[in-house]
């Protein structure tokens, strides 16, 4: 009887794994089949010459180049805001916060993690409306606002991963530096954070993916269908997920639909590229922090 149960559980695990991987490959194969034909230089730059577009001499209006740039800027901007705050928050919760405040903060961040992205977007929109009342005509939905809202969206992940990484460090390693005369800050910066950098970077990778794919937040805070290459933090911009969403609901012919699938492939490749970059940084960073 026990053996039968064990066999069933093993079989179920295998099937689950197979389904998951099959789903992933079906998705990728479908995307490639539908969109591969559209992937050519024209998809990126339209009628503009690629060199002119890359040098920012001429704007691209019928290609994906501005959307790719917009998505990259979104990711960089929101990460620049979210990483310092998230890691600092995690360090505070794990190392400094004591007593009754801790469960309260934990609950708060759990609630924040559960807020749907559309609500975060609405909050950003509301902020612009309120600000607009005080500075009429000067505040409008823009790249910076989107970055702030996306940062707010991913902050709980970063705080939690940093906190969990720090709290799961072996007590012996935790005691090593203080026993040698390290202050609490020295212990955190020279031993505890380097020790947990792998877990923290994993959290950052997840958060980056979330920033790259989120549509609801940016839809309400500044993304538009046509804006050209983002020139300012205070201007509107294009982004890949919004482009995909827009094309899927508004396409006029099979060519445009294929472009939408092409954009989906590009977004996927962008995420894979960022993941590879993050893993590379993870390796370099660990040795840099620990062996300097």
């Amino acid at each position, binding site marked *: 009887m026990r053996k039968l149960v064990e066999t069933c559980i093993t079989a179920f695990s295998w099937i689950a794994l197979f389904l998951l991987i099959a789903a992933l490959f079906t998705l990728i194969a479908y995307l490639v089949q539908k969109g591969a034909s559209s992937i050519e230089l024209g998809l990126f730059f339209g009628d503009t010459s690629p060199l002119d577009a890359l040098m920012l001499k001429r704007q691209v209006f019928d290609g994906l180049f501005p959307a790719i740039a917009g998505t990259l800027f979104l990711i960089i901007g929101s990460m620049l805001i979210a990483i310092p705050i998230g890691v600092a928050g995690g360090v505070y919760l794990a190392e400094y916060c004591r007593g009754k405040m801790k469960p309260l903060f934990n609950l708060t961040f759990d609630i924040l993690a559960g807020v749907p992205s559309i609500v975060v977007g609405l909050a950003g929109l509301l902020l612009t409306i309120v600000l607009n009342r005080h500075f009429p005509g000067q505040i409008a939905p823009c790249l910076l606002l989107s970055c702030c809202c996306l940062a707010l969206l991913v902050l709980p992940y970063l705080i939690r991963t940093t906190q969990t990484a720090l709290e799961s460090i072996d007590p*012996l390693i*935790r*005691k*090593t530096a203080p*026993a*040698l005369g390290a202050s609490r800050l020295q212990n955190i910066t020279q031993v505890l954070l380097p020790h947990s950098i792998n877990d923290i970077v994993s959290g950052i990778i997840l958060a980056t993916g979330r920033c790259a794919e989120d549509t609801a937040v940016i839809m309400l805070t500044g993304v538009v269908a046509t804006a050209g290459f983002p020139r300012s933090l205070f201007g509107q911009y294009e982004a890949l997920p919004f482009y995909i969403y827009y094309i899927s609901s508004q396409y006029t012919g099979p060519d445009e639909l294929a472009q939408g699938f092409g954009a989906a492939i590009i977004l996927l490749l962008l995420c894979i590229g960022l993941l590879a970059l993050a893993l590379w940084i993870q390796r370099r960073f660990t040795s840099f922090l*620990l*062996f300097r």
Partner: protein
Amino acid sequence: MIVNTNIKIQTHSLCFYYYKQKVLRDISLQLPANKITAITGPSGSGKSTLLMAFNRLWEEIEGCKISGNVFMNLNGQNTNIYAPALPVLELRRKVGMVFQQPNPLPMSISKNIAFPLRLAHISNKNLISDSVEASLRKVSLWEEVKDRLNDDARLLSGGQQQRLCLARALVLSPEVLLLDEPTSSLDPEASAAIEELLLSLKTKCTLVMVSHYQDQIQRIADRHVKVLNGQCSINHRQA
């Protein structure tokens, strides 16, 4: 207060609490200078806690509380180590500690030894490399590692790692060395090497060692403190 230069550490009705639990009860001890004092007792009797009371390391653990006093003869002065004015980091540089498991940090051998110096903001490179060499010589590790000081310290054998940790604790020339079962994760040969080292360190510092091994205590300890249910009894031995 009687100031006796032969007494290195004195505790006065020291009590230790972990949340509501009383781990140590009313401990009053006098530990002699330049001797090895062994602390024994069953698991969970508070031996390691007693050690941590001497370098205030328990302050890093949530839920710990202490009452009573600990006086230590530091820089030739009888000092209350729990006096609010006493900087705890200074105390921990004077009172080194070695743990049961070797705990080299994931960096090179020389950087491990130099780590406490860096924590103390010492940046003179010559001074650092001299201190690293001197420390490694003190624990007879220099000859074994002098050609690979830049290798990862975690690649050393268990016994070598423990000697490395001992060298790291010695690099700031502490006056007191606390050892929490320093040989229990090592094989007999490596243990013998550590024991020999501890004997040779007696001239420079006062050693307080938690140990489970009766034969080890017989071999190297000058004094034997038994902890049972948070209370102490002392066996004097003729060294």
